[in-house]
């Protein structure tokens, strides 16, 4: 299967909330159907500053008759995303993807729990949609825990509400939902769920995933967490996006977030 670098054409690129953008990109039909959790490497065609491409999760996907469309939900975090945010309709971007592995769907789990921090909602949204559409899970069996610093950083909720019945929002300052950490919200509810019948999908800042990992220690919950690391190639070649993972014997090894992840069993992640 030949891979290629796609020239994507921007259909729209709107600031849906302060510093958060939704970009819609038209791609050739040869773009593979992305699996939830997969991402793309994006850069502006012909621009060498910023130098590296940036990894962004695929937030939504649709295949039309003449082209595919992907949506990217992103936060302006620095130079690269600021340049993206400045792109107008019809601009061209270079896209490599879909890349990486995806969340594993276990049909035997009755209860699905999503835990997202901020922009971590992006890949989990695609996952929720797919689970719902495929009939694997119902609106009732999917609970979404979403956290952010402030109300300003809560995005993508509207889309979720169509998919999940139970949505818990937490902000650090209480400006939206309840005040507190998203991981604490989950922890409070934890006993309501049967560990063996539940699958947890998590995506968010390192601190969130780490806190979650602590909460889950000693429990039987199975949790797949999507990680972030700085990337250069996105394809597994540079070994730059390393994350400490326990191998079968429990020894530390470094895995590539881009090629071996971005989704890992939370229990295997080694925290410094």
């Amino acid at each position, binding site marked *: 299967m030949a891979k290629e670098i796609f020239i994507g054409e921007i259909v729209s690129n709107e600031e849906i909330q302060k510093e958060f953008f939704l970009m819609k990109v038209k791609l050739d039909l040869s773009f593979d159907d992305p699996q939830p959790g997969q991402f793309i490497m994006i850069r502006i065609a012909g621009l*060498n500053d910023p130098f590296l491409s940036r990894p962004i999760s695929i937030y939504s996907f649709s295949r039309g008759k003449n082209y595919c469309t992907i949506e990217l939900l992103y936060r302006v975090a620095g130079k690269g995303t600021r340049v993206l945010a400045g792109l107008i309709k019809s601009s061209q971007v270079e896209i490599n993807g879909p890349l990486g592995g995806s969340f594993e769907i276990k049909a035997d789990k009755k209860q699905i729990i999503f835990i997202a921090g901020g922009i971590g909602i992006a890949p989990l949204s695609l996952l929720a949609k797919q689970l719902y559409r495929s009939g694997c899970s119902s609106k009732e069996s999917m609970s979404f825990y979403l956290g952010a610093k402030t109300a300003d950083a809560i995005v993508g909720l509207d889309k979720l509400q169509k998919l999940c019945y139970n949505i818990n929002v937490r902000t650090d300052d209480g400006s939206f939902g309840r005040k507190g950490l998203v991981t604490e919200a989950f922890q409070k509810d934890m006993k309501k769920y049967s560990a063996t019948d539940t699958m947890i999908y998590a995506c968010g800042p390192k601190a969130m995933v780490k806190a979650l990992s602590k909460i889950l220690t000693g429990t039987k919950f199975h949790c797949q967490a999507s990680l972030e690391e700085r990337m250069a*190639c996105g394809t597994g070649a540079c070994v730059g996006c390393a994350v400490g993972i326990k191998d079968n014997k429990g020894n530390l090894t470094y895995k590539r977030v881009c090629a071996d992840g971005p989704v890992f069993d939370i229990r295997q992640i080694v925290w410094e």
Partner: protein
Amino acid sequence: MKKNVNLAVAIGSLKIKNPVMTASGTFGYGEEYAGYVDLNKLGAIVVKGLSLKPRLGNPPPRIMETAGGMLNAVGLQNIGVEAFIKEKLPYLKNFDVAVIANIYGETYAEYSKVAARLSSVKGLHALEVNVSCPNVQKGGLSFGCDPRAAAEVTRRVKGETSLPVIVKLTPNVTDIAVIAAAVEKAGADAVSLINTLTGMSVDLKTRTPHLKNITGGLSGPAIKPVALRMVWQVVQRVSIPVIGIGGIMTPEDALEFLIAGAKAVQIGTANFINPRATMDVIDGITNYLMENKIRDIKDVIGTLRT
């Protein structure tokens, strides 16, 4: 069309179909980019640096972007020579392309052992000996900073193999031509340069280095002028083939190195930004020859007028 131009070059006894290779550590073991490029079309594949035993590598973060380049402190993470022979080499044998094993060690003995082991198997066409290793913390300077140590590594490796031996030089030295001359005298069949320049970058928020390893290797177009200068200096000093590396992104970049006297080039960081960079460079060199009505790449190599 392309039949009219001859791109084949020889690096000592190693004949390759064109002068474009991948740089070690930037192309995995070939597989990673096989979907994007036809490996058969490459001049050669240089694989990720191999050591005797598997190596864990440095803790993350390992990379950081810089102006026109990037820093890496992968720490030579690799699966080790045995796993390479068992798991990666068979795949590479499927292709009609020269495969060059990049090797390194922390002692002379390690270099010897890796060289010996790799020379005992089929499917490899040359060894590239990394004497730079700026990322690996070890007491004292790297082998590549001392002409005697670099020469000694060369002699040891030559003693263990009948494959062509390319010694890959570090740019973090006062006079790279001195090192090149020393390894030439010690029997190197070719030299390749440059490896990364040691650099650093600081996170203002945390006031820590961006890389866990503190320093890392700088690569990409930012270093191209330094690489080109060093290639030119070395070309004037040695008579063995010189392979140019450093910041090559485009056919034009590659041609600068060839004109300055490099017999071949390696493409590194560019692969990350454009997985098809090697193909684009080969096509672009072909076009340059055709446009300038040059039949053979040899009539480009070393034609710099000063």
